[in-house]
């Protein structure tokens, strides 16, 4: 309990209850303020922050989600230097080669431009050979 100036007012001789003042009821039993829900709010906020910080710290340090280690030996075995992040045929699949001033076709019979996949699929029948470019 606080003491001195901040002790409860009824302990001070100068502020004695007047004879006709009503008897103070027990303050803790009455839901007179919202400090308890405020405490809950604080607790929830603290818990959320702590959980998030702990989880993120643990994950970034230890790596709970599987890292891309399984793909690495396969990439080594097939010997490619590109990833399957973008569908095949898109310029972004092969950023080293596109855009490029060099025409990467192997032969003059092949189309000049590497085929864009979507128009190719939408318009052309599949009974004729298609372009093959690295």
């Amino acid at each position, binding site marked *: 309990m606080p003491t001195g100036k901040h002790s409860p007012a009824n302990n001070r001789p100068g502020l004695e209850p007047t004879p006709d003042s009503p008897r103070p009821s027990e303050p803790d039993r009455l839901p007179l303020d919202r400090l308890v829900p405020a405490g809950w709010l604080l607790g929830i906020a603290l818990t959320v922050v702590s959980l998030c910080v702990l989880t993120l710290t643990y994950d970034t340090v230890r790596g709970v*989600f599987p890292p*891309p280690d399984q793909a690495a030996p*396969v990439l080594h075995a097939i010997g490619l*230097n590109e*990833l*399957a992040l973008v569908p095949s045929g898109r310029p972004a699949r092969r950023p080293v080669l596109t855009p490029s001033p060099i025409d990467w076709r192997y032969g003059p019979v092949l189309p000049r431009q590497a085929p864009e996949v979507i128009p190719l699929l939408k318009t052309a029948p599949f009974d004729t050979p298609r372009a093959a470019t690295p």
Partner: protein
Amino acid sequence: MRHRRYAQFLWAGRELLTHPGATLLMALSMGLLTTMMATGLLLSQALTATTSRLLDQGPDLVVRRVTPNGGQPISSQAADLALKIPGITEARPRIWGTVSTPQAAVTVVAADRDAIARLTITAAIQAPVRGEAVAGSGVHLPETDAHLVLHGTDTITVRITQRFPQETDLATHDLVMLHPDDARRLLGLALDEACDLALAVFHPDEAEALLPELARVFPWPVHIATRQETRKHYATAFGRRGGLAALLYIPAVIALALLTAAVIRQHIGSRSRVGLLKALGWTSRDIVGLQITKAAIVGLPAIAGGLMLAYALVYAPSQTWAGMLLLGWQETAPIMHLDAGFAAPVFLEVAGILLIPYLAAVLWSSLVQAASNPHDLLNRGN
């Protein structure tokens, strides 16, 4: 002192409860903003980190033959020429390219029997024989048939006998591995021809120093791509996509500005409350502390939760949304097992981007009021 601080935290919580709806709305808005911003940044960061890590397993240098008419197949003997240069430890002629199937374009690659034999992953992969193929999880087949029709310079039909494991999707999602003879036929290459030459060097950091010598050793002009170059291209591509994604942040930043303005307005709106508190013995420091505490009680969990959600969205083991939404996959996107090792700076960056203006707005408005005369605040406030 500690007791007093706890009591003030408690009171800040109580003040927030006077407007629970606004408090919740504020927390949700900040959380969503955080998720939006952090997801984009984390994804870009994770893709760059993962690409870099995976490309370390690829060749150090790739040599392509160039003629005035364009790219040309390379002779398989070119590997011997390359191996004459000290520092080059391995030269592998590669047969690979993009071809189409009735469903979509796929990348085909000729199997290197020795390299495949060394592969010890969960589901061991066997190098395919003629007429068979190993396909990635994103290569579609008709429901009743295991045969795949491939259109290149020729058309061939192969039977899919194995699938690459889904965990390797980042490298194999729409990849078809063929027998070298099938691959040559499909790509229109002669028996001793390859598309290009993949080289491994003894000291990867010094790969660039070998370029002049490599260019000299071949009897025809060549284009040589280094790993560094490949990495840089990927980083640029992600950066460009990130730049486009930044356009999405504009509404987010506007929303943040409005949010901050609302906070300021809320504080200025309660000038008479500040005046009253000062009259009742609250110091400027108490009032600023209360406002900052209130902002922190709302902002910190919202930002932490938003970051957590973004983290789960980007790094969850089975996430495919990024491929579907951002990378152009139509039906099935590769499962991305991304590298979470470098996420911490992004968290700090996003937390800083959001929290600093928010807290600055609160601090500024609180300070401006706290320095005023309580009498003026009481009488001129609303």
